[in-house]
């Protein structure tokens, strides 16, 4: 090999170390960049290329590639768990808000308002002629109503807040997917663009935090991203996501494909959007339905009793609370005296429905007999405000004699129980009987006291035994110990189970959050172990390559000196 070859070797070394120093500098520069993957210059010796029997040293050094120090398995795991963490993070924030609404640790909870209301009835029973006691009762009833209204409104506000957050998250998804598609094209045209890959992975990680997606790489290194089988990114193409609410105010997610708007709501599997869905359409709804059931049963039961009694003015038959179920009775001689929720689970699935009960003498399609000789009844439901009706099959009614000459029966269907008063004969007078029943959608928000005049409080059971007759007030006060709520629980127990559920929910979310936090921290450490930049290491590399560079420079000088020596020799 000629002496000139030494220059070449020196040159390759200079070039290689320069690039290695570049890599080091780049690593140092990005030591704190989130999602950055450490790069390493891979050195390789250049073989001599000549075939000579005895050993021949090579022709220097070169950089075969700059490698991303990246462990695909850890990264995938991390992405997955970060998606879970993000789910629990959002879920946890939501349930904490629910918990705050039902926080009985402070003295401003709803349960003191419930006991306060019933205690006021006892006060009235002790002094039924007292104006003060009656006024206080109305004030306490208004306070209880207000507390329930407020709790319901807070939950409702929380739902709209979550919808707004979903809208902005969906916007973020669209911005991320279009940036990924953009990067896809760039990476496809220059596969060595390591930093673009880092950026893309970082975007993908954020996307997974919003909603879990599946990703695969095509043959030119582009990511295809699917959400439950529906493409969001297909190479360089982007399909935009959107969110809206349906007629039942449920959140729906769509992907705008060229030929259809595909509903992907059921395919949202993890991340913040799933947490939003679970909170908005499950947890919060559940508490709202329970508050509605509470309000309906409270007003229905109190009203049923209150109508039996008489105010100080001797007038009876008044409601105490505003009725929360609209009942229309266009024909016939019977009356619906009570509509209460007996099963919150069933009721909540059928909220926003109207019911129609018909009676006749002859029966017909969907009619069932009651008593002997039989009269016939039928229950229908409508979900479109009364335009179309379908017959439902309620539990067989029980017919109980209330008093001589008076009958009432209860029909139970879809989680509600309807009590109809009236003798069989009255229900089938010519033309038949028809009731339309419509539980209010936001019953808990509409709960309120029906009057403000304290003399109307019906403490007496006998309108001629005024003012000392306290029997009705005592009967109503005693309802606090009666199973008047759905699931046969007392008012306080019914509410207490809501508080306990809110607490358990918040506690388990907290535990899950802590678990995923630790898990992600652990995985993050694992990734750092491989992909993280260690400044000490880079400093060592810096010294190493600097020394190498210096040595190579000296190599060139030595080659130069050798040549000079040779030239001087021949010049003589």
């Amino acid at each position, binding site marked *: 090999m000629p002496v000139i070859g030494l220059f070449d070797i020196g040159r390759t070394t200079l070039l290689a170390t320069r690039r290695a120093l570049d890599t080091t500098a780049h690593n140092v520069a990005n030591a704190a960049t989130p999602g950055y993957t450490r790069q390493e210059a891979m050195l390789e010796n250049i073989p001599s290329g000549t075939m000579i029997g005895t050993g021949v040293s090579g022709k220097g050094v070169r950089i075969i590639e700059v490698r991303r120090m990246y462990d695909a398995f850890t990264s995938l795991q991390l992405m997955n768990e970060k998606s879970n963490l993000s789910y629990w993070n959002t879920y946890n924030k939501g349930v904490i808000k629910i918990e705050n609404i039902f926080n009985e640790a402070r003295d401003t909870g709803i349960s003191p308002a419930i006991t306060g209301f019933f205690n006021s009835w006892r006060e009235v029973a002790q002094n*039924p002629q007292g104006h003060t006691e009656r006024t206080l009762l109305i004030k306490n009833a208004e306070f209880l109503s207000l507390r329930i209204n407020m709790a319901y409104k807070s939950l409702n506000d929380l739902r709209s807040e979550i919808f707004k957050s979903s809208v902005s998250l969906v916007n973020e998804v669209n911005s991320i997917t279009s940036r990924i598609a953009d990067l896809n094209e760039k990476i496809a045209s220059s596969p060595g663009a390591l930093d673009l890959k880092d950026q893309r992975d970082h975007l993908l990680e954020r996307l997974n935090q919003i909603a879990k997606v599946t990703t695969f790489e095509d043959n030119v290194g582009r990511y295809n991203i699917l959400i439950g089988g529906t493409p969001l990114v297909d190479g360089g193409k982007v399909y935009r996501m959107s969110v809206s609410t349906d007629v039942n105010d449920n959140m729906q997610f769509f992907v705008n494909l060229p030929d259809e708007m595909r509903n992907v709501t059921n395919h949202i599997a993890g991340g913040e959007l799933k947490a939003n869905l679970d909170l908005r359409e499950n947890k919060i709804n559940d508490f709202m339905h329970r508050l509605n059931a509470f309000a309906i049963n409270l007003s229905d039961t109190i009203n049923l009793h209150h109508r039996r009694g008489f105010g100080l003015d001797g007038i009876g038959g008044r409601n105490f609370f505003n009725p929360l179920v609209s009942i229309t009775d266009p024909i016939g001689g019977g009356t619906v005296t009570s509509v209460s929720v007996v099963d919150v689970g069933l009721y909540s699935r059928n909220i926003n429905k109207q019911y129609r009960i018909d009676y006749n003498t002859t029966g017909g399609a969907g009619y069932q007999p009651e008593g002997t000789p039989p009269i016939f009844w039928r229950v229908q439901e409508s979900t479109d405000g009364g335009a179309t009706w379908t017959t439902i099959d309620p539990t067989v009614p029980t017919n109980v004699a209330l008093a001589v000459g008076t009958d009432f029966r209860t029909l139970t269907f879809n989680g509600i129980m309807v009590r109809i008063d009236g003798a069989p004969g009255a229900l089938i007078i010519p033309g038949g009987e028809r009731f339309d029943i419509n539980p209010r959608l936001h019953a808990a928000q509409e709960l309120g006291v029906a009057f403000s005049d304290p003399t109307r409080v019906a403490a007496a059971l006998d309108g001629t035994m005024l003012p000392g007759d306290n029997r009705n007030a005592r009967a109503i006060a005693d309802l606090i110990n009666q199973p008047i709520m759905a699931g046969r629980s007392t008012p306080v127990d019914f509410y207490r189970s809501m508080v306990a559920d809110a607490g358990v929910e918040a506690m388990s979310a907290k535990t899950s959050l802590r678990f995923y936090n630790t898990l992600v921290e652990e995985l993050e*450490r694992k990734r750092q172990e491989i992909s993280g930049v260690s400044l000490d290491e880079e400093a060592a590399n810096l010294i190493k390559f600097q020394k190498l560079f210096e040595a190579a420079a000296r190599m060139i000088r030595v080659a130069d000196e050798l040549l000079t020596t040779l030239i001087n020799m021949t010049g003589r």
Partner: protein
Amino acid sequence: MRITMQMFYDRFISDMQKNMEAIFRSHEQLSTGKRINRPSDDPTAMSRVVGYKTQISAIDQSKRAINTAKDSVESMESAMRNLNGIITRARELAIRGATGSVDAGARRMIASEVDALLQSAIGIANTRVGERYIFSGFQSNVAPIDASGAFATDNNPVSIDIYAGITVQINMPANRVFNDATPLMTTAPPYDTAAGTFVLQALNTLSLALKGNDVGIIQQSLTNLDSVSGRALEAIGEIGATLNKINTIEKYHNDRNHNLNTYLSKDMDADIARVVSEMAQRQTALEGLRTVATEFLRTSLFDFIR
């Protein structure tokens, strides 16, 4: 294991956060004095707490009901004792009037004292507690004995609940002891000897007999007074039993209230000594963490390159 600076930062931040959170929670417990500040702190205890609070509130209400009941029942008791005193005095007067040596003029004198007793008895029958006539029925704003001396309201028992399921009658309609719906006679004879079973009737008959100078009826009145005295004592006994019942419940409430407050405190209140020592521990850990972090994270190999 390959360690990078970022791993130290992350660990430092997360450990610091954990300690800060623990201190924050301890601080919350100290400032509220409560162990449970939200349902998730201990959902089962929170549920129990709601139960205890409901019971305590029921007992508070019950205490007020007991006071109302006591006011009425004690007034009834003292009224009945006064009435019994009146009956005893009337008996003495009847015995004096029945004596043969007393002349018609003296009997009229005695009769005027009996009339005064009758008026007091009517006054007692129309006793009010607050706005309520305690010897009336549901028509509690109507005086039970009207101007004619007849019972003029309903005889419904007025009950209040002094505790769940325990009721106490806070009235005693006047037709039990004083008089039924028969007005008092103003002239005699004939005397209504059968009506002697009521206090007002017995007193009225005695007064009329004294005025009419009719020794036979005066003696008959003595028997009547004995029997109405028996009635009054019976009523006093009943009222006494009611008072006992009220006192028993009141004592039970005091014990129960104390117990409930103890349970409540056990579930609810923070163990201050423990919280403080925990907080001190965390604080020490946090200080250590800060020192190490500032010392260690400050330097790297770069500092030594010249």
